[in-house]
């Protein structure tokens, strides 16, 4: 590991979090959503637009660029922009790069945001829009295969076949996360579900049912990042960025190492842990990217919380429930709170470490892991380790 990455540990902090409501039809532009979430996050931090020196987002051509948001909020000459092309896999890399810019002194305070009309305007599942732009698409789309639920269902089936993972494991995960959402006023889905409800939900692409899939959501979420020094004088208890990693992994289609049951997270996790000087046993709460139920199960393995192939039984044991050994997706996750393409996971991790998560608060939470899409559709992922300041 590069020595400078160790120096980066705990140098920056998340000091503000802002949301718009999560809905099925926001009725406004993603630019409007972005501005609302950013102003809310600044207000939470006790800062104003005049303090913002940088703006960062990720998007797939569907949302407001920093170069539009800056002028829309009257920001004079921000010194740092990041407009990262990409989906959920880069969601945490955006915050990681913002933190590097802050640590390097390029910008003292940066706001990271994601604004998305993923139900009313731009549906990630492909309905009503063109095919994704990637050379791999030509080998898949002619067979009627291109939507993320199809792709993840394919990987989930491989895991079921290789390790004996069961539909009931996926179901237990959906049930557990819904129970968390019941305690979250922000969540879109707050009616409890049972394993029978899960098993009775309609097929999307076998082995996935409707309740394996995250919620298509309109909404925005923003995070304010600044130096750890400045964070100490601000309104909210700081949450330190102890580790911030992003990187590679293999294509699941080529490269001679294709294993559809392991993700890029398996390669990234050791670097992330070393950077923060922490390990799986130190983590009190985890927000694991849950575009689909299966993605949580494979990440529990690849981030080292259980052995390879044991993710399903680990969930079924109750370990990921609020009162379990490792509470996971305490807000309900993308499955039940809403889907803001990764950023609401980081926001929930911050909330847990501040101790302001209300009825779903994990007592004594001091270290949190938050992760991006683990690198299935494109071979890249990213993650953050956060610590109570």
């Amino acid at each position, binding site marked *: 590991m590069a020595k400078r990455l160790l120096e980066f540990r705990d140098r920056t902090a998340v000091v503000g979090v802002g949301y718009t409501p999560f809905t099925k039809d926001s009725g406004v532009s993603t630019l409007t959503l972005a501005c609302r979430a950013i102003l809310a996050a600044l207000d939470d931090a006790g800062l104003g637009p005049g303090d913002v020196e940088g703006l960062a987002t990720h998007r797939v051509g569907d949302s407001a660029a920093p170069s539009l948001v800056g002028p829309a909020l009257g920001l004079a000459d921000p010194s740092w922009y990041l407009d990262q092309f990409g989906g959920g896999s880069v969601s945490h890399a955006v915050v990681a790069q913002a933190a590097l810019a802050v640590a390097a002194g390029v910008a003292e305070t940066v706001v990271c945001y994601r604004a998305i009309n993923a139900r009313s305007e731009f549906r990630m*599942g*492909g*309905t009503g829009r063109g*095919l994704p732009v990637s*050379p*791999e*698409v*030509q*080998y*898949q*789309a*002619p*067979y*009627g*295969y*291109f*939507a993320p*639920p*199809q792709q993840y*269902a*394919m*990987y989930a*089936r*491989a895991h079921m*076949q*290789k390790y004996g993972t069961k539909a009931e494991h996926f179901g237990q995960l959906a049930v557990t996360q819904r129970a968390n959402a019941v305690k979250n006023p922000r969540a879109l889905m707050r009616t409890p579900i049972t394993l029978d409800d899960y098993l009775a939900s*309609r*097929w*999307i*692409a*076998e*082995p*996935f049912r409707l309740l394996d899939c995250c919620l298509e959501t309109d909404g925005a979420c923003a995070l304010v990042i600044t130096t750890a020094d400045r964070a100490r004088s601000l309104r909210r208890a700081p949450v330190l960025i102890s580790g911030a990693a992003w990187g590679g992994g293999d294509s*699941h*289609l*080529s*490269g*001679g*190492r*294709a294993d*559809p049951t392991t993700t890029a997270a398996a390669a990234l996790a050791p670097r992330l842990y070393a950077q923060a000087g922490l390990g799986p046993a130190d983590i009190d709460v985890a927000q694991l990217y849950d575009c689909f139920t299966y993605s949580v199960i494979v990440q529990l393995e690849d981030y080292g919380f259980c052995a390879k192939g044991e993710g399903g039984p680990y969930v079924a044991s109750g370990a990921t429930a609020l009162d379990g050994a490792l509470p996971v997706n305490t807000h309900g996750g993308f499955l039940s709170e809403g889907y803001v393409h990764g950023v609401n996971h980081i926001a929930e991790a911050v909330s847990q470490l501040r101790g302001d998560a209300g009825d779903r608060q994990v007592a004594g939470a001091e270290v949190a892991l938050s992760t991006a899409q683990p690198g299935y559709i494109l071979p890249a992922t990213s993650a953050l380790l956060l610590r109570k300041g």
Partner: protein
Amino acid sequence: MPERYGRPPQGVRPTPDRDSKDWWARLAGHEFAVQRCDTCHTARFPPRAFCPVCRTEDWRWAAVEPAGTVESWIVNRRPFMPGASEPYIVVLVRLAAVPGCLIHGGWDGDREPEYGQAVEGVYADMGDDLALLNWRPTEWHASP
């Protein structure tokens, strides 16, 4: 009574790129080709300019048998694109000719695939100099 499965919706034609144009042309002629590195002889798919093992650019096409084993499959039941009303199966095949390489295709079997099942490619002509590669079980060929 086994369920009848439909075919994937037609109409989404591949968009070859400069690396893959010749591969699609060979497939249209019912040849399944992979690239073989001139330097280290590693086979690779999908088509790319560089060998990922020795990072050299010299290679040639190698026609191989489209054969492999079932790594995974889905039964699609939601019309993600227009014209897809029936359930259809998409299979992920581990290629025998290229170690560590997976390929997607349509399913040409009467029953659902099985994990690890031996399969062979079936060319499906789509008109206008285009063929796709679907997969079917090979076991009924094997005479014990």
